[in-house]
């Protein structure tokens, strides 16, 4: 192949015959305005306008911040919901236990072991209290 061959007469002849043999594009039959409108309608449907981009960017900006915050909040809520019954039970148990504490229990807890026999001796409450308060560690 001679790449630098100039177009010869047979090329022109061939071109002329090809042009005659091929139907020319019917450019005068096309409604260009309508075709352009078709293209632009489809274009508007697929590509956001500048206004839309600004709106979208605002949403995107909020999403960028909002998604982690929302995720954290949801995680915290889930943890709270899971932990709440357990802690409620613990608090309830403690409260019910506190409800049954008597003065004797308190005294037993506060009184040295040496005074315990006195507590269990069926003494009168006032005497018991006095003995507990005045006890100095000496054997009665």
């Amino acid at each position: 192949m001679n790449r630098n061959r100039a177009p010869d007469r047979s090329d022109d002849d061939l071109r002329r015959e090809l042009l005659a043999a091929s139907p020319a594009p019917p450019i005068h039959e096309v409604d260009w305005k309508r075709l352009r409108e078709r293209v632009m309608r489809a274009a508007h449907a697929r590509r956001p306008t500048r206004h839309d981009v600004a709106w979208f960017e605002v949403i995107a900006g909020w999403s960028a911040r909002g998604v982690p915050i929302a995720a954290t909040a949801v995680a915290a809520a889930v943890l709270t919901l899971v932990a709440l019954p357990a802690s409620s039970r613990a608090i309830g148990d403690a409260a019910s236990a506190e409800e049954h504490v008597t003065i004797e229990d308190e005294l037993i807890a506060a009184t040295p072991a040496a005074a315990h026999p006195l507590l269990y001796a069926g003494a009168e409450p006032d005497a018991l209290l006095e003995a507990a308060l005045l006890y100095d560690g000496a054997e009665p």
Partner: protein
Amino acid sequence: MVGSPRPGDRRPLSDSPRATTADPPLDEAYDARLVERVRNGEVEAYGELVGRHMRRAFAIAFRILEHREDAEDVVQDAFIRALERIDTLARGRAFHPWLYRIVVNRALNVRRSRSICRTERIPPGTPATVVSPDRSAERAELRRRLKAALDGLPDRQRTIVQLTELEGFSAAEAAEILGISSATARWHLHQARRTLRKALETLKEEE
């Protein structure tokens, strides 16, 4: 970008006296500014690009499909596809060869999908099926058979012939539109011309 012209290359379409369209002259710098505006979200700027290139795009699609409505559909699809992918068009690269490549690819897809029955090859030496005493009828038969020979070329060769011989693009421009090297385009063009010239000579001998 379109390479420097070589002997055998024809003038670009914008200068071609055989240009079949009435599109405005090609102005790559102006197109580049429009593309930039489209990238910034101005769909209206795309309307201007459409207006500047739809006639040539239609002519290319029609050469491949030879059907007006199909060609219009291809033009619409190609412009939408180009808009969707406009961010992938490298900066500094001309818009119109890129668009025309999309047009050619989509038109070839449509052509293949509808299985046009125009791929008969003319065996050398096959006598004309109709021998008319009327000269114009003979010419019409010759052209019909030349057209059949053109349609019988491989896709790439046929498209290069359509772009260069019929639409007035240079071989370098056709190469850019098809995404092949200029040398490859010239080789295909040479092969196609040789085949068609042989068919033409055979047909003329039969006359």
